[in-house]
């Protein structure tokens, strides 16, 4: 797609216009062509601003570009979970996709556990696509593009970034690189663990996760992984944090959460993590923007479900 067309798409999406279905199809196609060239683990250089779960909170995403800087003035790494639960997953994914295509070396997207056909059929994105477009075509475009998203990023050979966490099947970053990632997220195995696992400060080793997928992992696992892979820090998202972030294991692991007042009720703060050239980490914390209200003038899409017909 031409740069001028991408700029026009970005402008329209920011105004919360829905892009036509064939345009989404073409954007997803271009995304696949771009992402298929990326390794499972993408190496990038600081400075970069890292964003955690967004879950369709589109106006909070726009707020991130206000406080963190516009693309391409600021480099961005998004850690997944763009869709589900919020009202504007379509808009969120449309914008992130356009930005990635427009500034491919300045925007990086990795896959979260919600970037999956199975999960989005339960947690809202499928419903939202059908409500906004009348059928599931765009959902098919988006979810087949999700299969191409990278699984991890390493910043300046030092900070290992992933959506969920570590896997008992993966000791080295090189092992991640040989996963066949171009598929739906499986129920178990290394690819599932990367997007589902959580740190647990109260237990060493890997343990069964109460989520029903992935594992919990302790400080010993984190230390060995970092040492073996010559990294200094693990950066991930995937868990709601009251203050918008959490630092665990004596500073070896951070969680960044970027959906303020999650689901309109949690009252939590959100943050983005700014990593500078010297690899200093600074959490830039924000709350829901009161500006949100003024955008919301149109009626939300009708959500009447078939159960009541």
């Amino acid at each position, binding site marked *: 797609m031409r740069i001028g067309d991408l700029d026009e798409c970005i402008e329209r999406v920011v105004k919360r216009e829905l892009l036509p279905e064939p345009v989404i199809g073409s954007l997803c196609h271009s995304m696949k062509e771009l992402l298929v060239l990326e390794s499972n683990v993408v190496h990038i250089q600081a400075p970069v601003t890292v964003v955690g779960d967004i879950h369709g909170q589109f106006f909070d995403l726009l707020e991130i570009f206000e406080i963190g800087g516009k693309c391409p003035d600021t480099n961005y790494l998004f850690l997944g979970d763009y869709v589900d*639960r919020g009202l504007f997953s379509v808009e969120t994914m449309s914008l992130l996709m356009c930005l990635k295509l427009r500034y491919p070396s300045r925007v990086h997207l990795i896959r979260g556990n919600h970037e999956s056909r199975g999960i989005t059929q339960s947690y809202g994105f499928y419903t939202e696509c059908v409500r906004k477009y009348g059928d599931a075509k765009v959902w098919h475009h988006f979810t087949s593009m999700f299969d191409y998203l990278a699984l991890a990023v390493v910043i300046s050979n030092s900070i290992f970034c992933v959506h969920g966490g570590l896997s008992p099947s993966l000791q080295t970053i090189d092992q991640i690189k040989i996963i066949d990632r171009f598929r739906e997220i499986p*129920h178990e195995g290394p690819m599932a663990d990367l997007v589902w696992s959580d740190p647990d400060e109260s237990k060493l080793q890997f343990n069964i996760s109460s989520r029903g997928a992935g594992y919990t992992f302790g400080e010993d696992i984190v230390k060995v992984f970092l040492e073996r892979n010559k990294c200094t820090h693990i950066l991930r998202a995937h*868990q709601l944090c009251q203050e918008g972030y959490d630092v665990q294991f004596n500073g070896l692991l951070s969680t960044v959460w970027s959906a303020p007042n999650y689901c309109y009720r949690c009252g939590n703060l959100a943050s983005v993590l700014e990593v500078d050239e010297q690899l200093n980490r600074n959490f830039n914390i924000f709350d829901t923007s009161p500006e949100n209200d003024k955008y919301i003038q149109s009626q939300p899409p009708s*959500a009447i*479900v078939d159960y009541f017909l």
Partner: protein
Amino acid sequence: MAPIKRINSIADVAQFGESRAYAQILKRIELISLACKGVQYNGTHSSLVTPVLTVLQTLSDLIPKFPPVQSHKRYGNPSYKDWNQEMTECVKKCFFDIPQPNPVLEELQFYLFNAFGSLQRIDYGTGHELNFLAFFDGFLRVRETEADGQDILCVFFTYFELMTTLIRTYNLEPAGSHGVWGLDDHFHIPYIIGAAQCIGSLIEPQDVLNEKKVAEYKSSNLYFAAIAFIYEMKRGRFAEHSPILYDVSSIPTWTKIQQGMRKMYVGEVLTKFPVVQHFYFGTLFSFDPNPEKNYQTF
């Protein structure tokens, strides 16, 4: 013997749909819907449900013993884990006035342990609510009796109040919430019972949009108790943060709404692997196939 996990894959969910347990859950929903039809809660109850109310009151009294800690990073407050552990100890001592020994006591206790949220995840959702329904159903079956509408309302109001207190006190995360695309972050059963209560009453479906009416009905009607909790917890316009409930308010009759809520319970709770994988089976809720064909929908 404590119930065991039987649902380990999507395929097992289909088998669950043909089980005796599934038939029993649907039957209980049918029974409580019928018993509560047109009944408004007046705060009274019979001695039948006193053992259930006593344990819920005891668990509620435990909350002040474990005040939320002030400085913590995660959303859910870690003091909830202390409450949950004490709750388990408490429930282990409960006999619910059932003549002993009775082998199903351990099963009843098991469903109750799991009815108040997850110790590890500090969250609460419809899977936990299903465990409470299972406990109450088992309790009635062991007693070989049925509860009337007022008793059912008293039990579910008391449980709802305990759960909302826990959610407020410890910030229990919505477990597996569908966000704006779901009915409610935590609950479903209050909508089934509450809609049944509204049938034949003067309450109108669009009264949920009127905060004054919501306040008026919330202590006698479970549907409105749940709506009042949403108004308390959520910021923003109702139509925006709760679009499904907003749309339901335009449905003309409560009969239609009640049916829809039950269909939706089947579609969004009982047949969803992420929810029912956590439901366990034993003698009260058997995973064996039901010899009669189960009705999948209402």
